[in-house]
C-alpha cells in the first residue's frame, strides 16, 4: 500500500514537471518566433525604402554606379534568403553597402542639401537602428530558450519533446570587421 502511494506521488511529480516545462518552453518558443517577426518587419521596411533612396541619389551620384548596384544586389538577396543565417548575412551586407553610400554622400554637398534625401537618410538610419535592436532582442530570447533546453534535467525531456536549439541572428565576419570609411 505504502509503496504504491510513493510510486503514485513520484509519477505525478514527474508528470507535473514535464507539463510545466513543456508550457514554459512553448511560451519561450513563441516569444522567439515573435521577436524574429520583429526583425522581418524592419528588414521589409528597409527594403521598401531603398528604391526611393536609389532614385533620389541617382541624379547626383553619376560616378558611384557600383555602390548603387551593390545596394540593389544586397536588397534582392535579402528577399531571396529564407534561413535565419541567410537573412542575417544578407542584412549585414546591405547595412555595409548603405553605410558606404552615406559615407560617399558626404562628398556631394548638393545631395546633402536635398530635403528628400535627408528625410530618407533619417528614415533608413532609424530602420537600421531598429533592425539592430530587434536582432539584439531576438538573440537574447534565443539565448534564454537555448539555455533552458540545455539545462539539466530539462535536456533529457526537451529533446524527446522535439525542442531544438534556435539559431541566433548572428553578425557575419564581414560585419564584425570595422567598416573603413573614406572621406
Amino acid at each position, binding site marked *: 500500500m505504502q509503496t504504491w502511494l510513493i510510486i503514485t506521488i513520484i509519477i505525478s511529480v514527474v508528470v507535473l514537471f514535464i507539463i510545466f516545462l513543456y508550457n514554459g518552453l512553448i511560451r519561450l518558443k513563441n516569444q522567439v518566433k515573435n*521577436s524574429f517577426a*520583429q526583425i522581418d518587419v*524592419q528588414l521589409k521596411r528597409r527594403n521598401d525604402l531603398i528604391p526611393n533612396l536609389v532614385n533620389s541619389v541617382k541624379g547626383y551620384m553619376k560616378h558611384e554606379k557600383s555602390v548603387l548596384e551593390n545596394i540593389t544586389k544586397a536588397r534582392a538577396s535579402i528577399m531571396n534568403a529564407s534561413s535565419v543565417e541567410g537573412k542575417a548575412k544578407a542584412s549585414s551586407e546591405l547595412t555595409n553597402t548603405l553605410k558606404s553610400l552615406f559615407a560617399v554622400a558626404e562628398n556631394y554637398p548638393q545631395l546633402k542639401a536635398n530635403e528628400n534625401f535627408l*528625410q530618407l537618410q*533619417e*528614415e533608413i*538610419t*532609424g*530602420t537600421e*537602428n*531598429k533592425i*539592430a*535592436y*530587434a536582432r*539584439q*532582442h531576438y538573440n*537574447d*530570447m534565443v539565448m534564454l530558450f537555448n539555455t533552458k533546453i540545455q539545462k539539466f534535467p530539462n535536456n533529457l525531456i526537451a529533446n524527446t519533446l522535439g525542442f531544438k536549439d534556435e539559431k541566433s541572428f548572428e553578425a557575419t565576419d564581414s560585419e564584425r570587421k570595422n567598416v573603413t570609411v573614406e572621406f
Partner: protein
Amino acid sequence: MRVSFNEVRNNKLKSYLLIFFFILIIGMLGGLIGLIYNNIYVGLILSIVAGLIYTLLVFNTGDKMILSMSGAKLVTKKEYPHLYHVIEGLTIAAGLKNTPKAYVIEDTALNAFATGKDPEHSSIAVTTGLLKKLNREELEGVIAHEMSHIKNYDIRFMMLTTILIGIVTLLSDFLLRSFLWGGMGRRDNENNNMTLVLVVVGLVLAILTPLIGQMIRLAISRKREFMADASAVTLTRYPKGLANALRKIKDDPDPLVDHANKATAHLFISVPFRKKQTIMNKLFSTHPPIDERIKILEEM
C-alpha cells in the same frame, strides 16, 4: 532586456500601498470634518467613496494630467521623425508591445520624463532643448533610461505619487488653515468650540504628519534612477551614450524647466531646478548626484 520581476512586483505593491495610505488619509480627514458636524460616519463614508473615485480617475488619466501640467504636447512622426525612430527602436529592444506616445516640451532646458499607468499606456516627454543638444547616441541613452522606467512600472508608481501626494498636501494645508481661521473667528463666542477646534488641529497634525512622511519615504528612491541607468545600458549596450548625455545635462547652465514644480520634479531624468546644495535639498533629493551616475556608467 530582462527587467527583474522583483522590480515590477515592488512597484505594483508600492502603488497599492500608496493608494491605501491615500484612502486612509482622505478617510481620516473626512472623519474629522464629520466629527465637527457631529456625524463622523457620514464624513467617513463620503470621503472614502470620493477618495476611491478620485484614485480611479488618477489611475486612468493621471498621465494626461501630468503631461498637461508640464506643458508637454503630443507630436507626430512628421514633426519629429528622429525622436520617433529612437523611441520605436528602443521599444523593440525592450520587447514592449506598444510604442509609448511621444511628447515634446517647448523648453531650452535639457530634460525628459516618462509617465503612464503601465507599459501599454505610456508616454515619453522630452524638452526641445534636449532634442537640439544631444546627438543620436545620447538621445538613445536618455530614451532607454525612460523606457526602463516604463518597463518596470516605475511610471505607474511615480504617476500616483505625483498626484496623490500633491492632493493630500494641498488638502491638509487647506483644512489646517481653515480650522485655524475658523478658530480665530470664534474665539469670543464659544469657549467650547474653541477647544474642539484645537483638538481637531492637533489630531490632524498628529495623524497626518507621519502618514505623509511615510508616503514621501516610499516615493523617494534614489535607487530607482541608478536602476534605470543600468537597464538603459542593457538596452543600448552603449553606456557612453547615456554618460555623455548626463554630462551635457549637468553642464547645462539653465536646468530650469518652466513648467516643472515640486510635485513633478521626481519624474524627470535630472532635477529640473537650479542647483542649490542645501542640506535639505540633499536629504530630500529625488535624484542621486549626477556625477555619481556618470561615474558608474563610465565604469561599465
